[in-house]
C-alpha cells in the first residue's frame, strides 16, 4: 500500500479536527444571545479560523512539493476527475472561508486579538456594508463546503466498504 506521507496525514487530520470545532463554534457564536460568552465564542472562532488559514497555507505548500499517491489502478476516469475537482474545491474553500472571515472581522470594526494576544492586521477598513457582504459570502461558502465535506467523507467510506481498496486506510494515522 502506498500511504500518504506523515506530514500530509498530520495536516489532514489537524485540519479535520479544527474545521469541525470551527463550524460548531461559529454556529454557537451566532446563536448565543449577546453576552460575554458570545464575545468569547467569536474570539475562539476568529482565532481558530486564522489558525486554519495558516495551517492550510503550509499544507498547500507541502502538497504542491510532495504529491500524494494517486487513485488505484483501474479507477474510472470520471472518478479521477471528480476526486481532483473535489479536492481542489476543498482546498479552495478552506482558504476562502477564513479569508472571508478575516474581511468580516476587519470590516466589523470590533477590536480583536488572535487568542487574546496578537492584533490582527486589518485587510479592509471598518464599514458596515462591507461587513454585511462578507458575512453573506462567508455563509454561502459554508453552504458550499458542508455538502463537499459529506461527499469527501462518503467517497472515502465508499472506497473502503464498497470498492474495498486502500484509499481510506492510506490516510489513517499510524497505518
Amino acid at each position, binding site marked *: 500500500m502506498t500511504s500518504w506521507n506523515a506530514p500530509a496525514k498530520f495536516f489532514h487530520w489537524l485540519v479535520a479536527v479544527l474545521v469541525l470545532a470551527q463550524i460548531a463554534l461559529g454556529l454557537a457564536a451566532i446563536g448565543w444571545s*449577546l*453576552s*460575554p*460568552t458570545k*464575545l*468569547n465564542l467569536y*474570539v475562539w472562532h476568529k482565532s481558530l479560523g486564522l489558525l486554519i488559514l495558516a495551517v492550510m497555507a503550509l499544507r498547500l505548500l507541502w502538497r504542491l512539493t510532495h504529491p500524494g499517491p494517486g487513485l488505484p489502478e483501474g479507477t474510472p476516469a470520471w472518478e479521477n476527475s471528480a476526486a481532483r475537482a473535489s479536492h481542489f474545491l476543498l482546498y479552495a474553500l478552506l482558504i476562502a472561508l477564513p479569508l472571508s472571515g478575516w474581511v468580516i472581522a476587519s470590516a*466589523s*470594526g*470590533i*477590536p*480583536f*486579538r488572535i487568542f*487574546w494576544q496578537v*492584533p490582527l492586521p486589518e485587510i479592509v477598513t*471598518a464599514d*458596515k456594508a462591507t*461587513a454585511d457582504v462578507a458575512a453573506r459570502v462567508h455563509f454561502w461558502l459554508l453552504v458550499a463546503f458542508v455538502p463537499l465535506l459529506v461527499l469527501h467523507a462518503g467517497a472515502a467510506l465508499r472506497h473502503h466498504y464498497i470498492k474495498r481498496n486502500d484509499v481510506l486506510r492510506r490516510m489513517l494515522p499510524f497505518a
Partner: protein
Amino acid sequence: MMTRALLVLLLIVTLPARAADWRMDAAASRLDFAATFEKTPAPGVFKQFDARLAFDGDTPAGGKLVVTIRTASADMGSADINKAIAGPEWFDFARHPQATFQSSEVRREGERYLARGTLTLKGVTRPVDVPFSWNAAGDAATMEGEFTVQRGSFNIGTGEWLATSVIGPDVKVKFRVRLRSGG
C-alpha cells in the same frame, strides 16, 4: 467722593481677578474614551459635547468647568458595538441622553491644573478629578488632559457585563478642547 474712589480702588485691588469666560470651538475639540474589549483596546469618541469654562491660568481658584455630553453621540467605530452600547445595560441612551461634569473646585497642580467635581452619567453622580494642561494665547486656549473612570461605578455594563474579564473595568477619558474667550 474721595472715600468712594478709594473704596473702588480697594475693591479692585483686593477682589480676585474675575475669571475669563471661555466657549468651546466644537470643530477643533475632541472627547475620546477607551475601554478594553477582550483584552484589546476599544477606542470611542463622543461626537457631541460642550465645555463651558470660567478660568484664568493665573488665578485658577475662581474657575468653573461645566461639560455636557450627549451620550448617544458615542461612536466606537463598529455598527454592532454602537448598537449594543445604546441599550439599558450600557449607556441607556433613551433614559439618560446626557452626561455632565461640573467642577466644584479648580486648583493649580505644579505646571498643570486640577478640576475637582462630579460626573453624572447614567443617573449616577460620583466625584471625579480632571487634571488638565492649559495653553492660552490671546483669545484662544487649549485645554488637554486625561483621567480614568470605573465603568461599574456608573452602572455602565450591568447584569452579565458586571464581570470585567471580557469588557475591562477601566475606561480612560481623554480630551482636547479648543476654547475662545468671550461669550
